[in-house]
């Protein structure tokens, strides 16, 4: 069988298997030459142990931060994924045949091997390779100081979406908060009020998992868990002002398209962050200008229309699988769904969330 030809937008031919070998070779060189720059942490993604090895203390700080709430002390047992990264700026070790692009506004490109088991993600300043069968993700970063706001807030985003998908954990575009492990999932497109609802609930003492991306896992008994992925939130300036407690921690964007501020919630309310929750109901925030936030039942199709498009279309990898749509439909058919009508007054949002948990928790 002839291997497909894959070209980057710059017209450079990519061979995913060769590219992956180059990445592993580059990482090994950096690891062997710079023991003093090695950093290692373990995390828990979707209940599974993840080992992260980074050569470059600056890069390690940047990468570990978005997952800090998922850190684990237990380092026994084989990891379900080993992530190995190195920083060229800190180690002096480059990636053979690759030079960083100056234009950070360019988006990433994905390239899969013919059998689909090796996936290369090329971004202007980074390149990663995911070996799905070997459960290994290896990556080069040209200079961690030039990582985009998106890369800082959601490191390895598309790579981890795929890894989750391979473990039957569907990454969906949603928020999630909980009390005593019982969670309410917030579905809706950008600007619908997911962040407002999640952040107001966090401040009111709820456990916070996410305001944007949640790993959805079906349990054997037909119930569902939501898993946290990142502890970051991205807020527009007007939106950020409504959360004064976040203002001192806001990291402004540097690129024209980075019009939001990034906040690492682990810097603000680390004790409020949690790894997972059992999902008891779905709330669909919608800004309607109501005096007080209000709940009313939503149909399954309304919930699907609210949750599925951005979950399936915006997430790389997941979108192509009709099976993912079917899973999301099944989830919504088996869980109570509500509209959460929002207005100017956000104070009472946590009360409505509390009411939902009293009904369904």
């Amino acid at each position, binding site marked *: 069988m002839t291997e497909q030809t894959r070209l980057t937008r710059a017209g450079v031919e990519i061979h995913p298997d060769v590219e992956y070998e180059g990445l592993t070779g580059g990482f090994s060189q950096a690891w062997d030459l710079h023991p003093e720059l090695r950093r290692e942490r373990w995390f828990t993604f979707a209940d599974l142990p993840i080992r992260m090895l980074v050569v470059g203390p600056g890069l390690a700080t940047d990468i570990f931060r978005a997952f800090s709430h998922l850190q684990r002390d237990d380092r026994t047992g084989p990891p379900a994924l080993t992530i190995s990264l190195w920083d060229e700026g800190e180690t002096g070790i480059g990636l053979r045949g690759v030079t960083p692009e100056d234009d950070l506004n360019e988006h990433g490109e994905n390239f899969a091997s013919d059998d689909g088991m090796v996936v290369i993600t090329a971004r202007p300043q980074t390149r990663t390779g995911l070996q799905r069968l070997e459960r290994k993700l290896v990556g080069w970063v040209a200079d961690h100081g030039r990582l985009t706001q998106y890369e800082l807030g959601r490191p390895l985003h598309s790579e981890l979406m795929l890894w989750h998908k391979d473990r039957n954990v569907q990454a969906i575009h949603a928020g999630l908060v909980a009390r005593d492990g019982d969670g309410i999932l917030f579905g809706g497109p950008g600007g619908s009020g997911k962040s407002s609802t999640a952040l107001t609930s966090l401040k009111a003492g709820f456990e916070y998992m996410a305001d944007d991306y949640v790993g959805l896992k079906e349990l054997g008994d037909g119930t569902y868990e939501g898993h946290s992925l990142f502890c970051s939130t991205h807020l527009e300036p007007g939106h950020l002002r409504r959360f004064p407690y976040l203002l001192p921690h806001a990291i402004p964007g540097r690129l024209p398209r980075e019009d939001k501020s990034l906040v690492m919630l682990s810097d603000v309310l680390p004790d409020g962050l949690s790894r997972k929750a059992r999902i008891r109901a779905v709330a669909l925030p919608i800004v309607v200008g109501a005096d007080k936030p209000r709940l009313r039942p939503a149909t399954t199709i309304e919930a699907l229309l609210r949750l599925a498009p951005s979950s399936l279309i915006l997430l790389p990898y997941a979108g*192509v699988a009709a099976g993912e749509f079917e899973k999301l439909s099944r989830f919504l058919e088996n869980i109570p769904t509500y509209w959460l009508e929002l207005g100017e007054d956000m104070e009472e949002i946590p009360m409505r969330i509390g009411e939902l948990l009293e009904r369904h928790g």
Partner: protein
Amino acid sequence: MLDSNTRLRPNTDDVAAKVIDGEAIIMNLSNGLYFSMDRVGSAVWEMVEAGLSVDEMSSTLDARYDVDGDAIRDDVNRLVAELLAEKLVLVTETEPSSPPSTLGAADHPYSSPTLNKYDDMADLLALDPPMPGLGTLPE
């Protein structure tokens, strides 16, 4: 021009769809457009999935509702043309492998089917386009 014997099938390479409680949601994952249809429209979608011809769809609805048959035929032809134009369905030569199921009695009055189109995701699709053909991990 559609032939009354034309059969269609969902464009499953690009499209995911679901009918729940008499309403349909259809997503074209290749371009970020998504659609909804209520009662009669979702019935048409189910008949597309079942492999009925355009003529059989009209006849089925005609038997189901106390409405002028020509009006139903016009509605079905229009809706099918829209589904084709949006590449949500494809013409197929394949006969249904099993006899097409018939819809039960209607529990609602007839209304002309509408394909509601939503394009708020289409611009965002370009940011991180989904990658086809990855396949699943072997067991």
